[in-house]
């Protein structure tokens, strides 16, 4: 089924929208989740949560590109699961507990600011990415947005692994310079 029709099903509150989404995008979303979580059970949980989140968010949202819209949800949910698990792993140590307490205390006062800061940073990264060559941009997105391995990125960008590594190295350095210039980072 075409994406427009699936979105139409969501907008009409037709539950078959989830089934259609699952049959078309399950493998795509699972790959995004697995790249972050490296665990089958957690990845399935993340993908299932994505369907629910999509159901809850369309409407009011009406995504232009359904795949990237769903991919963003899966990525965010998977990162949240990853961080939650990491926090749980650290719970045994008193150092980790004290660190967590301090993080929670800071988070209470700075969350809206941080969210705004991250959004502004995201817009800056967006602008930066548009200055890159298509190859450099695709490799960077593949590695740091989709979190694919360098080998996979090199394969689907049709270049050698060493060239992909070189492009990533250069792009990271350029990003650092750009963020310093834009005032997001301080020069060391």
């Amino acid at each position: 089924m075409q994406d427009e029709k699936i979105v139409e099903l969501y907008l009409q509150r037709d539950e078959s929208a989830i089934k259609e989404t699952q049959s078309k995008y399950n493998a795509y979303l699972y790959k995004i989740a697995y790249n972050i979580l490296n665990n089958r059970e957690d990845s399935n949980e993340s993908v299932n949560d994505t369907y629910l989140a999509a159901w809850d968010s369309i409407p009011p949202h009406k995504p232009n590109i359904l795949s990237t819209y769903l991919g963003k949800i899966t990525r965010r949910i998977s990162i949240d699961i990853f961080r939650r698990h990491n926090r749980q792993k650290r719970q045994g140590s008193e150092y980790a507990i004290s660190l967590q307490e301090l993080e929670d205390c800071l988070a209470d006062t700075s969350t809206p600011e941080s969210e705004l800061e991250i959004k502004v940073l995201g817009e800056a990264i967006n602008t930066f990415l548009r200055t890159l060559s298509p190859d450099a941009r695709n490799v960077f997105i593949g590695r740091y947005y989709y979190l694919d391995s360098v080998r996979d990125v090199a394969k689907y960008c049709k270049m050698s692994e060493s060239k992909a590594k070189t492009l990533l190295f250069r792009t990271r350095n350029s990003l650092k310079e750009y963020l310093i210039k834009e005032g997001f980072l301080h020069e060391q």
Partner: protein
Amino acid sequence: MNSEKILDAMEFIDEDILESVDVLRKHPDGHRFLWLNYIAVAACLVFAVIGAVSLFDSPTAPETNNESQEIIDGNIGVEDFMTGDMHDSVTDGSNEGKEEFAGSTTDNYTDSGTSGNTTTNTLASVALYVEITEITSDGFNANVIESNGTGLYDNQPVTVIYNGPQELEISDFNVGDKVYLKYNFNYNNGSIIYTSSIAFNSEDLK
């Protein structure tokens, strides 16, 4: 700012940018253009058949280039190329009368150089660490930082000519970059170096 913030911020990347990568991820082997491969293979087969037919149809075999025939017969050794004309490759008909460069691979490059005093060495699989001073049309000029027992000395200027796979472009490098390179072959007492592998990290050298 930490790396987590950057990863979080990437959520705000525009969808058209993500979609262009999505397309690549969905077709990692380029299936969309598979038909082009079939056409290329078919064209090669047609040329091969036409070539074979015309060869067998001709009353006498075409005359072979004398020099090529001598190579095939084993009358010219590799050492002849070191003082003579430039050749891209040598086809061995037999092993007699030929020598391999010490430590060389099948990708040997020979050149008579620009002066009569040319010295030719082959030092395969030796990593050299250099700083790029100038980008040239086919490589770059650089100063040696670490010679790693190659016989070169520190700060010696060298001309590096890249002759490796096309996927690595010299435009990927800039003046001031410090890179490792695999030291395939050199002449003019080491001042000109051919390399097929350049990388920012020595472990990435092929």
